[in-house]
């Protein structure tokens, strides 16, 4: 460090021979990156961080005015919040588990069972990821809905309907990293295991699964976060008894005009998401993704 400092002074003075003149043009360089970074940061702050801060502030301002923890006390004590939190968590966990199992099996078939069109299916998984979540729910309505093919039993409006829709929609999010992990497995390893006397289940359990664990963890934690915040699917199934945290925010803010309460739920939701995202980053970094 001691060596660097005098050199900088020389550059600023413009007295360095040779390359000095070139550097003197860029003397204000240290400020330029900051200048460039300012507009996006300001924009980001204005359109994203400021509203978020407002949400947080609102959550501490009951309708009576002033600063208070009362909204938190009210909401956290309420039965509807407890129920919504429980519904959100168990739906997200169950959907994640379902996605992991289904995604692992489907990715196994696509990656290791040679069938015509396997590549097309693998590519379709990528396209599927770009679909909006409510589209899947809408499609499911045609099969399971009140006027759907399967008939009039109101399956989709139960929590199980939401679970089915979430698993259907989020499974490809698990398959994507899995397919990438599977393509990295040396087929010679699988053949070696086979020649050593291992049948398919043992090969899957002992050779493929250990290699796929990081991808499973990464895909699983991503799906968990997405499920916790899923709104479109729950709304579109029309399941009245299924209230998740995002639905609760919607209900409090739009239907009950209870802004502080809505903001409290939103803050809780954000905290859970950020926490899980941190976990996802740790896991996916270990997976090298």
């Amino acid at each position, binding site marked *: 460090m001691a060596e660097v400092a005098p050199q900088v002074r020389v550059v600023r003075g413009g007295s360095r021979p040779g390359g000095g003149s070139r550097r003197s043009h860029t003397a204000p360089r240290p400020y330029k990156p900051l200048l460039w970074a300012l507009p996006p940061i300001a924009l980001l702050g204005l359109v994203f961080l400021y509203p978020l801060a407002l949400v947080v502030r609102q959550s501490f301002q009951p309708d009576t005015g002033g600063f208070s923890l009362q909204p938190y006390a009210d909401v956290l004590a309420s039965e509807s919040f407890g129920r919504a939190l429980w519904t959100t968590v168990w739906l997200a966990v169950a959907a994640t588990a379902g996605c992991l199992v289904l995604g692992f099996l489907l990715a196994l078939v696509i990656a290791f069972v040679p069938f015509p069109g396997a590549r097309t299916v693998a590519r379709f998984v990528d396209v599927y990821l770009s679909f909006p979540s409510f589209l899947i729910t809408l499609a499911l309505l045609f099969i399971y809905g009140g006027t759907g093919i399967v008939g009039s039993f109101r399956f989709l409006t139960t929590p199980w309907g939401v679970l089915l829709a979430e698993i259907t929609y989020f499974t490809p999010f698990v398959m994507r990293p899995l397919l990438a992990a599977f393509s990295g497995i040396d087929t010679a390893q699988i*053949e070696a295991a*086979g020649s050593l006397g291992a049948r398919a289940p043992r090969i899957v359990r*002992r050779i493929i699964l250990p290699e796929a664990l990081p991808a499973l963890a990464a895909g699983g934690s991503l799906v968990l976060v997405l499920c916790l915040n899923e709104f479109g699917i729950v709304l579109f199934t029309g399941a009245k008894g299924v209230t998740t945290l995002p639905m609760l925010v919607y209900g409090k803010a739009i239907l009950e005009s209870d802004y502080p309460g809505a903001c409290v739920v939103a803050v809780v939701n954000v905290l859970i998401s950020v926490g899980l995202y941190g976990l996802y980053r740790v896991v996916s970094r270990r997976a090298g993704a």
Partner: protein
Amino acid sequence: MAPAAPAAPAGIRFDGVTVAYHGTVVLDALDLTVEPGEVMALLGPSGSGKTTALRAVAGFVRPVAGRVLLGDRDVTDLPPHRRGIGMVVQQYALFPHMRVEDNVAFGLKARRTPKSEIRARVTEALELTGMAGYARRHPRELSGGQQQRVAIARALAVRPEVLLLDEPLSALDAQLRSGMLAELARLHRELPDVSILYVTHDQVEALTLADRIAVMDRARLRACGTPRELYRAPTDAFTASFVGGANLLPVTVRASGAEFAGTVIEVGTDGVAPGASATLCVRPHLVGLGDGPNRITGTLAELQWRGATHRLYVDVGGHRVMADVRELRQPPALGDEVALHFASEDAVLLPAGVAHG
């Protein structure tokens, strides 16, 4: 000490085995028998079908015609895990997340060997390959040569009757390769009942290790015999050039021998009608510089110093003849007229044909 095969030693028999991918025949009606306890090298350039033949024994490719037998067991329709073979491939294919001992134990566990026995068998296999001190390591902590030893130990732990080696030394550098070659020879002496099918494109490995060599070319078996037979008396030009390197000279058969570039060379014509075209095979190291029997002359086109030897490329009547001679004190200059000679018994007359590959 050395694991013995559980059943009677078994050989390998290819019975008209044909393999095709998408209509392209990659192995054409292979008939070949590996005797119990024999080391058979499948030697050939890439794309000759040698690896396909090995994979047909392992069960990873399905023949469109023919049968594969291990001993008297027809395994053509059996999946790989029921064939009871050991296999070692070029890139080792060790399981990266398992320790060395778990890699070696994998086949035993898959075959439901009693737990009490597994430990002893793992130790035995690792001792056999000199890797006993590395049982707790992970594959990534080992060198290439060590990884290949573990792969061999893993294949041997299940006590296979048949061991398939697919270019096992190709990923190693030259020095390690010759060490491992000696190691494989020792292993085979300790396990005399195990039949070994050894796929390689390296003639030195085949000559060193094999009891017999099967030379493959373009999906077909060209020749099969002991290394000495194939080297001393090859039956076709391809085998002659692929096993050991050879001068393949176009000749016309005469009553008293074979005529090459105006010189009649005394060689057994073996009943070939005079006037017919044929190929004369002479190993470069059996060609001498100077006067002698079967003298031919030409101009020196190229000279390579190889330490202990000089290699001369001499143009004789438009054909290039190679000669490996002991290092010359005063080598001739390029363009000089030189005389070459070789003994009649060192020359073999082959059917006319152009070598390739």
